[in-house]
């Protein structure tokens, strides 16, 4: 017995409300972030991640208030990603009650930002979020590149090399999303997850594509992920976090029940 594999529900938050993205278009409202966070806490979620998809800067203050409200009532780790661009953005989120922040586009724009953030706040709170798409043709050795701006903008950077570089710069964890799978409900990109998890010494969270409970277990056993993140499978009551953990436990995966 030892460290448990984690299940992390992810809430996409737009101007204070939880929404669900299907490949980042066709967004549906799924409710109040505080109520949803409490529900996941009761179900046994190991952490909760908020992805702030608010478009405008002045509405970002709303996210700070959401984090403050949730952190006052839900005593499990909280991560906030989306729009984290400066040391000051990080400080505001940590002071509001977030335990970790996810850095995505800002890391691609300036890799030294991750180093600066890790030196200032410690690696334990710096999660680098990587959005990757497979760029190799069928039959070729698989290769993935990172994309920014919700998967629209290619960067030409190899995803596995990028993960290694971000860890060298001080990332304490990698949140790895397959843009090919995100919103498809066809399961994680297990080859991608395994490639990154084997390449780095820090924990890797698999994300993108969960359609059924078995996908979560596969992310751990086949993808070698340390944690699995999912949104829609939990948001609409198809499954609870508790059910997911029971299934994982029945397959010999160590979880917190």
């Amino acid at each position, binding site marked *: 017995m*030892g460290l448990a594999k984690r299940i992390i529900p992810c809430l996409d938050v737009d101007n204070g409300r939880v929404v669900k993205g299907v490949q980042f278009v066709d967004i549906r409202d799924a409710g109040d972030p505080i109520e949803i966070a409490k529900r996941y806490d009761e179900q046994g979620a190991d952490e909760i991640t908020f992805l702030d998809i608010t478009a405008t800067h002045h509405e970002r203050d709303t996210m700070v208030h959401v984090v403050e409200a949730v952190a006052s009532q839900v005593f499990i780790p909280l991560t906030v990603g989306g729009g984290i661009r400066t040391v000051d953005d990080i400080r505001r989120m940590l002071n509001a009650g977030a335990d970790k922040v996810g850095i995505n586009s800002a890391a691609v724009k300036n890799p030294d930002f991750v180093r600066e953030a890790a030196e200032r706040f410690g690696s334990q709170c710096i999660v680098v979020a990587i959005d990757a798409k497979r760029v190799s043709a069928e039959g070729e050795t698989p290769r993935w590149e990172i994309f920014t701006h919700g998967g629209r903008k290619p960067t030409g950077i190899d995803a596995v090399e990028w993960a290694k570089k971000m860890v060298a710069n001080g990332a304490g964890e990698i949140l790895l999303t397959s843009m090919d799978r995100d919103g498809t409900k066809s399961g994680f990109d297990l080859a991608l997850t395994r490639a990154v998890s084997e390449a780095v010494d820090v924990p*890797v969270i698999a994300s993108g594509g969960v359609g059924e409970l078995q996908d979560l277990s596969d992310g751990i056993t086949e993808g070698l992920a340390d944690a699995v993140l999912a949104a829609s499978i939990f948001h609409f009551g198809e499954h609870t976090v508790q059910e997911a953990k029971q299934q994982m436990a029945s397959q010999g995966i160590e979880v917190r029940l």
Partner: protein
Amino acid sequence: MRRVAVIDYGMGNLRSVSKALETVSGQSAQVFISSKPEEILSASHILFPGVGAIRDCIDELKRLGLDEVVQEAAREKPFMGICLGMQAMLTHSEENNGIDALGIIPGEVKAFDKPLSAAGDKLKVPHMGWNQVHQTCDHPLWNNIEQDERFYFVHGYFVSPADPAVVAATTHYGADFASAIYRDNVFATQFHPEKSQRAGLQLLENFVNWDGQC
């Protein structure tokens, strides 16, 4: 009325720990965050949190004149260190190329070896997530907490006290390490009770109700 001071020395988020203390205290205790020596020492219970790196932690404590406050509080009041706060209580840390810490509990703070492995599996560092805490002593702070209960950890270094008798709990990650230590009126945890849901809140409630005897 009990008054619980959370020491603010600029290392990380104190909101979660103070909110958790408020939640378990209800009307029975007043919880406040402070960096003022007299105010801290006026409290009945003192909580010493911390996240980040040890060098900044010790530098900031000294700059604010709080190193002496921590020493004094740890001599006479129910006192609890969390995570980096716990590590700062030892004599010396390997982090940041070696830093002398407060020396309240003799011992070393050591890094997990990389790559860490167990049964052929690579173990990731930081040690991040929910792991089991095996209580190795009877202590009032373990009241109503199950043996081997899971708590939330996030750390790359661990404490190795000189005297094994101060170990209050062990946790296994590659090897066993001390996940809680105690002595007289002092208790400290490597894990974050303020982020460990029900069991964590129970531990904090036990601390607020603790008379400092064990």
